[in-house]
C-alpha cells in the first residue's frame, strides 16, 4: 500500500513550496494505440537530467500482471510506482483467498488505472504529486476487451484508442488521430508508433532514437529489447545560411 501507506515518510514541511516542485531526472513521451487484436505502447529509453542525457538505456515500460505501464516524467517517481504496483500485485496474488479458476490476473488494466488515479489524486491533494503521466494498457476485466488509458500527475484519467504523453500529446496525437483505425493490424500499429517516435526524436530535444515497443495481445505481454529507429535526413542537409558568400563554381 505504497502511496497511502501507514509508514509515513516525512512530515510536511512548513513551506508548501518545498514539496516536489519539478521533475529532476525525466523521461520523455510515451505513446500507445489499440489495434485489432491488442494494444501497443512505445517509449524511448533516454533519461534526461535537465538537458543532459543522463543514461540512454533505461526502460520506461513495465509489465505487471499482464498489464503494461509506461510513464513519462520523473523517473524516481516511476520507480516508486513500479515498486508500489509490484507490492500490490503480490499482495493481491498471495492474498489469503486468492484463487480463481484459470489464471485471471488479480488486477486488470482498468482496475490498475483506477487505482493509480486514486494514488495520484491523493498525492496531489497532499501537494506532493507523483510527477508522471502514466499510460496503462492491457485488458479490461469486465468486458475482456483491450484497454488503453492515462493518468496524469493530478489524477486526471483519460481512456481512448490512442494515447500520448509529454511532447507526444502535441506531435504524436495529430498523426495518431489521422492514421488510427479500429481494424489496424499489429504491423500497421507498429509502423504508426515508430513514425510518431521518429517525429518526436526529430523535434523533441529530450527524446532519443533508441526505443522500446510493448504489446498486450491474446498471446500475452511482450516488451521488446531497446532498438534504434531508422531516421531520415533528406531535405535537411542542403541549405547553407543566408548571406553566406558562395564559393564560385
Amino acid at each position, binding site marked *: 500500500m505504497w502511496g497511502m501507506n501507514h509508514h509515513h515518510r516525512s512530515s510536511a514541511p512548513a513551506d508548501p513550496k518545498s514539496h516536489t516542485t519539478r521533475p529532476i531526472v525525466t523521461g520523455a513521451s510515451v505513446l500507445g494505440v489499440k489495434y485489432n487484436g491488442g494494444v501497443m505502447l512505445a517509449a524511448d529509453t533516454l533519461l534526461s537530467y535537465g538537458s543532459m542525457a543522463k543514461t540512454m538505456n533505461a526502460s520506461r515500460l513495465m509489465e505487471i500482471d499482464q498489464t503494461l505501464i509506461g510513464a513519462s516524467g520523473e523517473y524516481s517517481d516511476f520507480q516508486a510506482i513500479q515498486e508500489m504496483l509490484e507490492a500490490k500485485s503480490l499482495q493481491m496474488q498471495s492474498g489469503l483467498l486468492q484463487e480463481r479458476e484459470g489464471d485471471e490476473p488479480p488486477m486488470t488494466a482498468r482496475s490498475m488505472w483506477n487505482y493509480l488515479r486514486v494514488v495520484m489524486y491523493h498525492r496531489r491533494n497532499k501537494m506532493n504529486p507523483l510527477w508522471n503521466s502514466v499510460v496503462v494498457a492491457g485488458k479490461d476485466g469486465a468486458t475482456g476487451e483491450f484497454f488503453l488509458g492515462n493518468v496524469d500527475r493530478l489524477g486526471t484519467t483519460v481512456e481512448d484508442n490512442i494515447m500520448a504523453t509529454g511532447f507526444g500529446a502535441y506531435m*504524436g496525437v*495529430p498523426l495518431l488521430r*489521422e492514421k488510427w483505425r479500429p481494424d489496424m493490424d499489429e504491423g500497421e500499429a507498429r509502423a504508426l508508433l515508430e513514425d510518431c517516435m521518429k517525429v518526436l526524436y526529430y523535434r523533441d530535444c529530450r527524446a532519443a532514437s533508441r526505443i522500446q515497443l510493448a504489446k498486450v495481445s491474446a498471446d500475452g505481454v511482450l516488451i521488446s529489447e531497446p532498438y534504434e529507429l531508422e531516421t531520415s535526413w533528406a531535405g535537411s542537409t542542403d541549405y547553407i545560411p543566408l548571406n553566406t558568400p558562395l564559393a564560385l563554381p
Partner: protein
Amino acid sequence: MSEFTRPMEGATEIPPAGFNFENVSRNARLMEAWTNAKEQAEAMRKHHAQHGMDVAPMMAGGGYPNHMPLAKKTGTTIAGIVFKGGVVLGADTRATNGDEVAEKNCRKIHYVADNMYCCGAGTAADTDQTTALVASQLELLRMDLHLPHATSLRMKTAVTRISRLLFRYQGHVSAALILGGVDKAEGAQLYSIHPHGSSMRFAYTAMGSGSLAAISVLESAWEPDMEEADAVTLVQRAITAGIFNDLGSGSNCDICVIKNDGAVDYQRPSLTPNNTAPFRAAITRSSRMDMKPGTTPILDSKFVPHKGATLADVTVTEMEVS
C-alpha cells in the same frame, strides 16, 4: 492569429502612422503591480501554512492573478513545403481574440510579390502590415531596377527586408512568417522568419501554435521531389492536423502554390472541413418561429418631414474631372 479590439466605428482619432508601442510601458507597470500582489499573497499563504491553515488555494492560484495580462496567444497553423515544381504554402483561417473566435475565414497567406507569398502567424495587424510594407518596398525595388519578370526579384531580398524590419523592433512586432516563392537565381525556396528577426531556409516547415501538429505530418511524410498534387495534399494534411488538434487554429485551409515558372495558384478556400451549413440545415425549427410579413397588422402610419434644411437648399455641382 489574434486581433486586438477594433476601434469603434467612426472614431475620430486617427492613430499616428507606423507601429505604436505605448502599451510597453503600461505592461511594465502592470507587471510590477502583479509581482507585488503575488509576493503579498505568497507571504500570506506562508503565514497560513505555518499556522496549519488551509493552503489549498495555492493550487488554484487563488487570490491573485496567475499571470499578467498578455497579448493574446497566437493561434494559427501555417506550413509550407518545396516540391519538384515549386512551393506550396498553406494556412488555416481562424482568427482568435483570446478564447473567442474573432473571424472564421480570415486570410493568412499574404501577397508579397508576384513570385512570392507569405504566411503569417502572430498578431494579425503585425503580419498584415509587415507583409504589406515589404510588398510595397519590393514593388518599388522591382520598378527601380527595371526587372522585367516577377521571378527576377530574389527571395533573399525579401527575407532580408523582413528580417531587418523585425530585428529593428526587437520582437515587439509579433509576426512569425513563412515566406515561399521562386526566383531565377535559386528556384523554389522556403524560409521561416521569427518575430525577433532570425530566418532559416527549409525544405518544409511549419509555424504558429499548430506548428507541432503540422510538422509531425510533414516530418513523417515529406520526401524530396514530390509531385504537385501530392505536395498540395501533404500541406492540406498538415494544416488540417493543426485545425483539428490545435484549438487556436480552425475553419478552412487556404493553399497557395507558386510554380517554378512564376505561375501562382491561390486556392481560397482549398478545403472546407468545418462547413457548418449541413448542421444548421439539419436543425428543424418550428414553423411557428418564422413570422410572415404582415403577421402584425399596421394600424396606422404617418410621415413627418424633417424640419431643418430641405433638399432644395443643397446646391449640387458636378465633380471636376481631368
